[in-house]
């Protein structure tokens, strides 16, 4: 159940995340050395807005910034399934 999930970033890099950890997707990206965009880190400014190509995320913090249907706020969510994203 607690197996790692794969997140494919910007069509190239693939990182692994542990869904059992409280870590946000943004933190996971940073840990893997991806150059990230952010300001508030708590879901209200939209600076980290990212395109979700496939997969599902779950929100840890209520996201307040506007999101179009294919967008996610990695500072406020974590992976629920394997993901492909464009950050």
């Amino acid at each position, binding site marked *: 159940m607690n197996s790692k999930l794969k997140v494919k970033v910007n069509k190239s890099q693939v990182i692994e995340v542990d869904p059992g950890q409280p870590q946000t997707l943004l933190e996971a990206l940073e840990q893997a050395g991806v*150059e990230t*965009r*952010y*300001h*508030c*880190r*708590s879901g*209200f*400014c*939209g*600076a980290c*807005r990212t395109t979700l190509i496939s997969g599902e995320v779950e929100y840890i913090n*209520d996201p*307040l*910034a*506007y999101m*179009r249907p294919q967008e996610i706020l990695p500072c406020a969510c974590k992976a629920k399934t394997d993901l492909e994203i464009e950050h």
Partner: protein
Amino acid sequence: MRYSTFNQTNVNPLGEPMFFGNPVNVARYDQQRHSIFEKLIEKQLSFFWRPEEVDVSRDRVDFQAMTDSEKHIFISNLKYQTLLDSVQGRSPNIALLPIVSLPELETWIETWSFSETIHSRSYTHILRNLFSDPAKVFDDIVMNDQIRKRATDISKYYDDLIFYTQLWQTHGEGTVEVEGETYQVSVRDLKKKLFLCVNSVNALEAIRFYVSFACTFAFAEREIMEGNSKIIRLIARDENLHLTSTQHIINLWQYGDDDPEMKEIAEECREEALEIFTSAVEQEKGWAEYLFENGSMIGLNKDILCQYVEYIANLRMAAIGFEPQYDQTSNPLPWMNKYLVSDNVQVAPQEAEISSYLVGQIDSEVSAGDFGDFDL
């Protein structure tokens, strides 16, 4: 249509558009068409802070040690921010409240504008600590050409919307003559003015503060003017939330989740909206140039600041559905982010000191003559 402070027709709040529907009657939040605005209200209230809680007394010594060009940068930025918050502390109320139709949005507008008045009061708090008489700084805001130029651009969309709304509310649609001038009034045209106005406010919240923010945080990186930087961090956190609200409004319109006529207008005025944004970007770059005309400051120069404006502008434009317009795709000032993280901002009571008390203390150590030759 005449404004009524309590419209007695029974309206269904779920069926109303954000603006130009029926005036709001009952301030009720049990049924919400766009519940995001109540979430923003809650967030804004949770951010509440008072300038007096932040001790700025140590900044006075730092300020005196600055070079003249650094003083110019610091004071000019405060003047510009004072202008921006003077406008924002009143205009959302005056321009948008008469035409808003949803209770949650009405209250958001009031909450938003109120938070801008805290920003205004904080500039006086900062300046009082630096000068025994800050009047000269404030007086220059309406005389300084660089600031006036920006003031015109910022206020014109608001003023236009306010004026035509007044005509509409007193005369209705059609041709109106006032003081020998003829005006055409229609709701469609008012909606267009509203769309442009919100785009201009969006650009203001999105990028107009960031040149000054970058200078403030560059001083903080050198561990000077830290009281000021603490206040600006609180302001920056608020501005990011305001920006989210204007992005929501624009996107609700353009993706057809509100008034269908506003969707048409968003399409029709797309070029004009883009132009409003890019001209704000150019003005900000011009501001960076003005700041550094007397020399630069450690850690920042005009070029890197302009790159930062472009980087931020790209993000902000993407948020309202525009293609990024600038080449700068990576952050040229990575340290900026740590000042914009909202969790790092705290006005912990144990840290906060009563600044009026401390200002008195500093006063006794420093005489006015020590910074008497600084020229505003």
